[in-house]
């Protein structure tokens, strides 16, 4: 799920003062409703990111737009956003992301000739090493931090990754 797109859609709703918006395209479905009243600054004001969201490594998501709202409907929107976070932030329902805690180069294998740490379908435990990220010539092992099954590997081997970039989708046990 592309949180940025969702945020943009929600921002557009606020910017153009929509009360309802529903879009279905390319397998994605989006539906939202806002309160009847007009909300504060009409221009696309990106609200400061809530530290809570940040510490979870979640992109500045749907909830940040809602957080500038006020009145009942904003609370609703926020509650909805929290729900989404509980089932995985910006990920498909039921899946969890493993994000990069540092900047560096992502490697799926301990050495060029070794087999990858994990493949799609593998079971992982919280302390299973799923990849290494090289930064300043140091290899940093990244652990799953969750028990479950690898459902998707989001980054190509030997690619650069930035802070907070999603690396794997895991289906928790």
């Amino acid at each position: 799920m592309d949180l940025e797109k969702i945020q943009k859609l929600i921002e557009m709703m606020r910017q153009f003062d929509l009360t309802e918006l529903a879009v279905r395209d390319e397998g994605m479905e989006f539906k939202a409703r806002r309160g009847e009243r007009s909300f504060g600054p009409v221009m696309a004001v990106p609200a400061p990111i809530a530290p809570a969201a940040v510490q979870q490594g979640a992109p500045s998501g749907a909830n940040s737009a809602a957080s500038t709202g006020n009145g009942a409907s904003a609370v609703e929107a926020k509650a909805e956003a929290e729900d989404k976070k509980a089932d995985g932030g910006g990920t498909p329902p039921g899946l969890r992301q493993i994000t990069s805690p540092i900047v560096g180069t992502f490697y799926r294998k301990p050495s060029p000739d070794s087999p990858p740490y994990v493949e799609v379908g593998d079971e992982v435990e919280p302390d299973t090493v799923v990849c290494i990220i090289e930064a300043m010539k140091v290899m940093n092992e990244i652990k799953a931090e969750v028990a479950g099954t690898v459902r998707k590997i989001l980054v190509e081997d030997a690619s650069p990754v930035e802070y907070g970039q999603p690396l794997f989708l895991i289906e928790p046990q």
Partner: protein
Amino acid sequence: MFSRILIANRGEIALRIMRTCKRLGIETVAVYSQADRDALYLGMADHTICIGPPHPAKSYLYIKNIIAAAEIADVEAIHPGYGFLSEDAHFADICRSCKITFVGPSVEAMELMGNKVRARKVAMSAGVPVVPGSEAPVASDAEARDWARKIGYPVLIKAAMGGGGRGMRIAHNDASLASNLNAARAEAHAAFGDGSLYIEKYIESPRHVEVQILADEHGSIIHLGERDCTVQRRHQKMIEESPSPVLDRHARADIAAAAVRLMKAAKYTNAGTVEFLYDPAAKKFYFIEVNARLQVEHPVTEMVTGLDLVEEQLRIASGERLRWRQKDILNSGWAMECRVNAEDPYAGFKPCPGPVTRYVPPSGPGVRVDSHLYSGYAVPPYYDSLVAKVIVHGRDRSECIQKMRGALEEFILEGVKTTIPILKEVFEHVRFVRGNYDTRFIENEFKT
């Protein structure tokens, strides 16, 4: 010249550096924290890399991620801007060991200038006047008292590792010295992890005057004239101008020559600033410290010299020779800068982050605004509250004052409280207009 650099900073100065890079055809890699991910200036960069969460310690000060970003983006150099890692010799050292050029002075010069006691010794050896005081941290309260009596009260108690006005106290007699020493030591320990203090002469009505230096790696060094940054609040500059309204021709030449001497003695390279206290009554100047980096107020010097200081920094860092001799530098007219901070000037300069609902900066002949703001930008609460710099250039000081009044009047910045109202007041204050004030002008004359 470099073909790709990383800018290890944010906000207006990141944008400022990018502008020069664009013009020189240098690719830019912008790093950002999650709090800055929506900043429009990131769109100007050739590459952007998220380096961490909003807290600076985990992003803009987190060396490991910045170096990793520089490596994956394969840059030749890092420009640190001001603040953050710009004066961190350790960071410069890591850059060097990773074969990335740090756009700034050498590690050695940074270490030397980062230590006030050592910097002071260099100044004295170069024949540059320093504020009379203990040449080293005082070992005991008794030693402090001996110094104070020798220098004569009032004296200033300063933390060796302090800066920007932090960790300073005034003592008017033996008794106040004793009590302030204890408090200052505890504060310095808490703030800087080092309780070392020294004692120096307290100058009653000083001006803050600084000299901009450019030095290449081939032994050439020039100055670009002085800036007067006397208008400060809580030891932080609010308004800067060039030239200084209180220097006569001789004082101007002397202070510039002293700055060049000092920087030569320190084997300083790249752009740097030598800060002085100037006592207009006695017509004496005293070295305070060196800022081993680009400064917030550098545009003031750009306006009077026509140079682009970021361009000069990049050229020097890439090993080029200075393109100018001292005689080529012809400062013309007058320039002033106002710092606009997202703060409430009438509530103790309390920071006021939040969304900017409308932003329409001033413009016109001789008016420049350096800012990363735009209508709809949200000022994040995690960083410095400086959000815009209004810079004007005119034929003389009074034309500058007129232009700045017009520019401040015209400036539309809604949604957050800013220092614009107090800046307007300053520009109407008779003492400011006459150039007759000292570094305590704001605290003495304004209700803040």
